[in-house]
């Protein structure tokens, strides 16, 4: 009888999927298994715009500089650099190699940047090169690409002439769009460039050896990487691609993946499983953007001021979002931004309206007078995500209860919402902004009158002037003073209604150490992660 049981048990184990004692981490081989939320849509660094592509590319490619685990700049392909108001010169290391063994040269950077700027590429991130001389004209098709102010003096020296003094130019070069692309390889692939694992050359810490679309991808340690001795992980297996948070938590519970982000619903399940919940502030700011077009009632300052005085960011964070990690929205400039010596927001605290229904009523009375009587129902445009809808309903209740204002919520899918935002078909819209690089300008020019992302058409010449100062000056004090004043103007104008700084919660396998969460750049970053016994 016992023998039969043993045989049956063996048979049973044989019949199962063969991954007995599954673990998403392997100490012996130093590998981890994770999931991503969607298929990376674009692995061509000149064209990538989304987070998932950025996450994968950040492990596979390396720019001139990179961010270290604390978010400070450190040398990447460039060993060192020199910077003046007119020029930046990068000295490339000789041992930086492509995954096929050929050296990474200054030409590869020039080619990548020219490619991204060529109008035919239609890269959505081409604007990020505009501090470089002639970049904007090339992008507009007014100049040929070879007129770009980035020149390879020799294989290992890259000289960049700037259009205007740009204090943060070096920081920009850590961004995806600045990654190198090798011309001969790019041309040999044609339209298929970056479409599959072998249609891409790698110069980062990992190379992609396998990419099954929408199913899985595998990144293994790059034997040609110049800094390979610092890389502990031998492989990052992305075995699952699904946007379903609950499915990912199930995979985590089942020991299949080492990391997953949680949301409001899965948070409670993770708590009940007694997982250690970690939190991280993403650096993105969410706010209500008003429509400042003159024909809209929201162009009235007193109306916006009234709303400003009844909105309580604490309630938004603690009772509406109700997920740990979110921070009060006080300013369009998030708390992590650096100022002169300390954090910007410590040096220039954000002005806050004192919560007062009475004051708000006074503003509202003035608004009614100026607008000639009753205020028509306001249209609040929101995206169709559960969080956005919940926020919209909160705002609707708030404005009805405190101000007696009617709000109609207009829930739209992603593309429809964008179309309505762009054409100005809204009074208020739930919007958000995430940083591209580690400088205050990544938020600073958002409300500038020339910025196409300023979809509410906010226009204040005084603010514009301050943005110009911060863009063109290289003196930290001058720049931050200008941005401090800009912050005050945005508050005085109630230009937007900051709601919260986004926080996210996640679980991470306790044996994985050294995973870096980043506000700017590939996040989460497994580059220097390791598995401990």
């Amino acid at each position: 009888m016992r023998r039969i049981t043993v045989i049956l048990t063996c048979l049973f184990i044989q019949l199962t999927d063969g991954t007995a004692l599954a673990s998403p981490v392997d100490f012996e081989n130093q590998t981890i298994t994770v999931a991503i939320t969607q298929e990376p849509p674009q692995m061509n660094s000149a064209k990538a715009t989304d987070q998932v592509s950025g996450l994968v590319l950040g492990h596979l490619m390396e720019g001139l500089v990179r961010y270290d685990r604390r978010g400070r700049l450190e040398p990447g392909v460039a060993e060192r650099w020199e910077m003046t108001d007119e020029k930046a010169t990068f000295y490339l290391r000789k041992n930086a190699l492509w995954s096929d063994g050929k050296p990474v040269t200054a030409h590869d950077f020039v080619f990548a940047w020219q490619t991204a700027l060529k109008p035919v590429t239609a890269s959505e991130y081409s604007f990020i090169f505009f501090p470089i001389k002639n970049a904007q004209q090339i992008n507009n098709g007014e100049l040929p690409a070879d007129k770009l102010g980035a020149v390879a003096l020799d294989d290992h020296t890259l000289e960049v002439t700037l259009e205007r003094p740009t204090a943060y130019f070096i920081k920009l070069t850590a961004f995806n769009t600045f990654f190198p692309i090798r011309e001969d390889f790019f041309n040999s692939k044609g339209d298929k460039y970056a479409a599959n694992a072998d249609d891409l050359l790698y110069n980062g810490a990992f190379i992609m050896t396998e990419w099954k679309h929408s199913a899985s991808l595998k990144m293994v340690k790059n034997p040609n990487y110049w800094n390979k001795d610092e890389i502990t992980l031998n492989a990052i297996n992305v075995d699952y691609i699904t946007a379903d948070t609950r499915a990912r938590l199930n995979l985590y519970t089942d020991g299949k993946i080492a990391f997953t982000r949680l949301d409001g619903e899965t948070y409670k399940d993770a708590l009940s499983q007694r997982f250690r919940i970690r939190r991280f502030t993403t650096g993105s700011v969410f706010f209500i953007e008003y429509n400042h077009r003159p024909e809209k009632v929201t162009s009235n300052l007193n109306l916006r001021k009234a709303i400003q005085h009844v909105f309580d960011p604490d309630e938004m964070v603690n009772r509406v979002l109700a997920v740990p990690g979110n921070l009060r929205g006080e300013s369009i400039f998030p708390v992590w931004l650096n100022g002169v010596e300390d954090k910007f927001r410590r040096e220039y605290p954000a002005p806050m309206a004192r919560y007062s229904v009475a004051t708000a009523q006074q503003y509202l009375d003035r608004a009614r007078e100026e607008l000639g009587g009753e205020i028509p129902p306001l249209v609040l445009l929101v995206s169709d995500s559960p969080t956005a809808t919940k926020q919209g309903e909160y705002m609707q209740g708030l404005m009805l209860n405190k101000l007696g204002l009617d709000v109609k919520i207009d829930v739209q899918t992603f593309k429809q919402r964008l179309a309505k935002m762009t054409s100005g078909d809204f009074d208020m819209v739930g919007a958000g902004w995430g940083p591209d690089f580690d400088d205050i300008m990544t938020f600073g020019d958002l409300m500038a009158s020339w910025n196409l992302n300023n979809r509410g058409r906010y226009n204040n010449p005084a603010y514009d002037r301050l943005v110009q100062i911060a863009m063109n000056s290289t003196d930290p004090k001058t720049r931050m003073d200008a941005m401090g004043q800009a912050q005050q103007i945005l508050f005085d104008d109630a230009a937007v209604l900051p709601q919260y700084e986004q926080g996210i919660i996640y679980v991470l396998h306790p044996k994985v150490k050294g995973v870096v969460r980043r506000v700017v750049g590939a996040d989460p970053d497994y580059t220097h992660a390791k598995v401990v016994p």
Partner: protein
Amino acid sequence: MLMYTLKRLLAGVITVWFIATATFIAMHQVPGDPLMNDKAVSPEIRANLEAKYGLDKPVTTQYFIFLSNMLKGDFGISFTQQNRKVNDIIRDHFPVSATLGVLAIFFAATGGVLFGALTAVYRNQMPDVVIMFLVILGISVPSFVFAALGQLMLVNINSFFGYSVIPVAGWGTIWHMLMPSLVLGLTTMALLTRLMRSSMLEVVNEDYIKTAKAKGLSPTRIFFRHQLRNAILPVITVLGPQIAAITTGGFVVELVFAIPGLGRYFVQAVQQLDYTVIMGTTVFYGAFLVFMVIVVDILYGFIDPRVRLS
């Protein structure tokens, strides 16, 4: 028979053309802009993107370009994955959906026929009541609930045994396919059970069953040779469209079980207004559905000679 087949095929081609045209018109009526993204782009870049996808031409011109490309079997490049052809997407991901679908249909058909026959045999008795209750459940509960429950069940089974008995998600082995295909087939199984039951009950009262009984045939023989064979015809009729529906309707299941099927592209393309993928997948699935209906019609002609006469 040949004329019959040819007629059906011609009607099929017209149907596919109609599907393509209707989708094309509907798609262009959807508000929103396929080229718009989080970051606003300059008019110059926009113009280049429009030129790349031919959106700078009038809609009627776009339609004829689309039709002529479709006849060549080319659906163009995806808007969201700009270096992948729609044809490649279909080729890469349809086999996954199809595998899942075939397995789901297998579950649905065997389960449906078996349970349906069972309920008819035990009409108004305990098995009938229980199964019919489950059938109502299967029809009314949406598949994302079943998917989530099914996955949770696997997690619990695995944690009970302490190792991976059945993988909770992913794709690759037969073990990955079991739960998703079961979930996917549930609704169809419920539908088929109901259909099979009523059709069985009809057959039970037929004269030839009485004759068979009178001849003294064993109940098993009557059941398999006379009842089941006659009652299964309506099931086969709906099976064709159901196969097409199941291989397309797997969006939720594919999402929950992290399966790289075409259903995900089919749904996400609409959300993202990915014009080329919308057209490619819809026309492909439309053609597939029409093809399955024709196949069933023709098969039906073989199984039941009465159909050909009418």
